[in-house]
């Protein structure tokens, strides 16, 4: 009915929202933010076997100003916290945060004077990936969940 019957199989129609969300989630560029042990599994996820390039994410931008995803991989200590928050603020909108691993989610096994008990106390986290460290497949699963979340976003809210 309507315009689709006139166009045949040559043209795709969609809503602007779906198009924008598809573009955003298909090439999320992470800011390289490995802090501790989880960073190793993140690097392995970007390497040849658990290829993150399949999701358009192999470019880990060194500068946060060119990134739209921050994967907090590792323990956040009180000395490091101002740097983490500043890097988050330097990222342009739209931006997302994944808390990878037990330490970033809740402080992990380090319930001590020097450790922040979860980065969500200071930053809005979109996806938590549990594990110590989570396997590269777990990281990829978390990223796919983030893709789903981005797919459901409304343009006007952002």
């Amino acid at each position: 009915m309507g315009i689709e019957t006139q166009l045949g199989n040559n043209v795709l129609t969609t809503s602007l929202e779906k198009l924008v969300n598809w573009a955003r989630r298909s090439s999320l560029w992470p800011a390289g933010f490995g802090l501790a042990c989880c960073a190793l599994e993140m690097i392995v996820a970007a390497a040849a076997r658990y290829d993150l390039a399949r999701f358009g994410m192999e470019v880990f931008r060194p500068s946060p100003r060119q990134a739209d995803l921050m994967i907090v991989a590792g323990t956040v200590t009180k000395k490091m916290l101002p740097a983490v928050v500043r890097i988050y603020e330097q990222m342009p909108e739209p931006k997302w945060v994944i808390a990878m691993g037990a330490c970033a989610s809740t402080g992990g096994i380090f319930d001590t004077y020097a450790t922040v008990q979860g980065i969500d106390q200071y930053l809005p986290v979109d996806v938590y990936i549990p594990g110590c460290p989570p396997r590269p497949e777990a990281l990829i699963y978390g990223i796919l969940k983030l893709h789903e979340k981005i797919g459901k976003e409304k343009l006007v809210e952002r």
Partner: protein
Amino acid sequence: MGDISTMTLNMGPQHPSTHGVLRVILELDGEVVVKATPDIGYLHRGLEKLAESKTYHQCIPLTDRLDYVAGMSNNLAYVLAVEKLLGLEVPPRAQAIRVLLCELQRIASHLFWLGTHAHDIGAMTPLFYALRERDEILFLFERVCGSRLTPSFFRVGGLAQDLPEGFEEKCREFTLSFPAHVDEYETLLTQNEIWMRRTRGVGSISAEEAINQGLSGPILRASNVNWDLRKAFPYSGYEKYEFFVPTGKKGDVYDRYLVRLMEMRQSNEIVRQALDRIPGGPVIVQDPKFVYPPKDRVQQSIEALIHQFHLASSGFPVPSGEVYAGIESPKGELGFYLVSDGSNKPWRFRVRPPSFFNLSSLSTLVQGRLVADVVAIIGSIDIVLAEIDR
């Protein structure tokens, strides 16, 4: 000469090439580094204090997270210290398996170092090749203990359990194919003009300075000091294996690269020898004070259940005293000091981290070099911040 003012440049703590959260404050005169001051502590998690509130067994997972690139080595150093304090004799099968796993771990650690070091200097291909082999080793570890990165496999008195079926075959396959892979990395880098220009003569340190600074591991050996704890104070049966310890001549970045490549080949040799010689027998000391009873007995006998519960909840008391146990980890001399007050928790848990000493030489190594060399030099020291900061 006039007033030379320098520019202060901050490198890190978020930086792709610092291998972790390291901050280096560089004072530059143009591109030349006048002074470099490392600022550490961004990963200080309070691990030594945390260990004082855990029983001796509960400290084993904490040690995994020190040098996270080489989990098995940290476990070994720690359990050796506790065993020394208790005066335990580890059965020969457990010793042989410990050597096997630690040498595999050395290869994995050096592979990761090779990939990231080359990547920092601009050679991106070795990273993918090295991580491919490292994944093979991590699969072997997963077969043994269930975890790729944080094994917690050794126990006080031996191992958590025996090697699974099929492990020895897979491990042997790996040792047969590995030397060809090292040849691959060598074809990419060793005679590569760009690699040699970036690494030869860069960041060298003399033997006397290296000793005075407390350096250890490949960085000390590259400066022509033949010191390896596996040969000097052998532990866990290392005296039974035939291998040589490579040393460099000039102590520059290129020599450190060559030393580590040769160490990978030697470790492969040791793994092959260990596979041929693992004796039979128990994998843990047969002493009920420190060792859990077998699981099937726990499910059937009340005494075994009580025993298991007691060990799991409150551990075992250790006679008072102090001890040091050091091993040759892939980064250098990793040691643990334990001071015991006779209770079931350590009174003082001190880690002697090799990367702490190795990094303290950074200001000497980069003096007068260019900014681009700083990255090459930090990579060649091979640091792990979690070990430095604890």
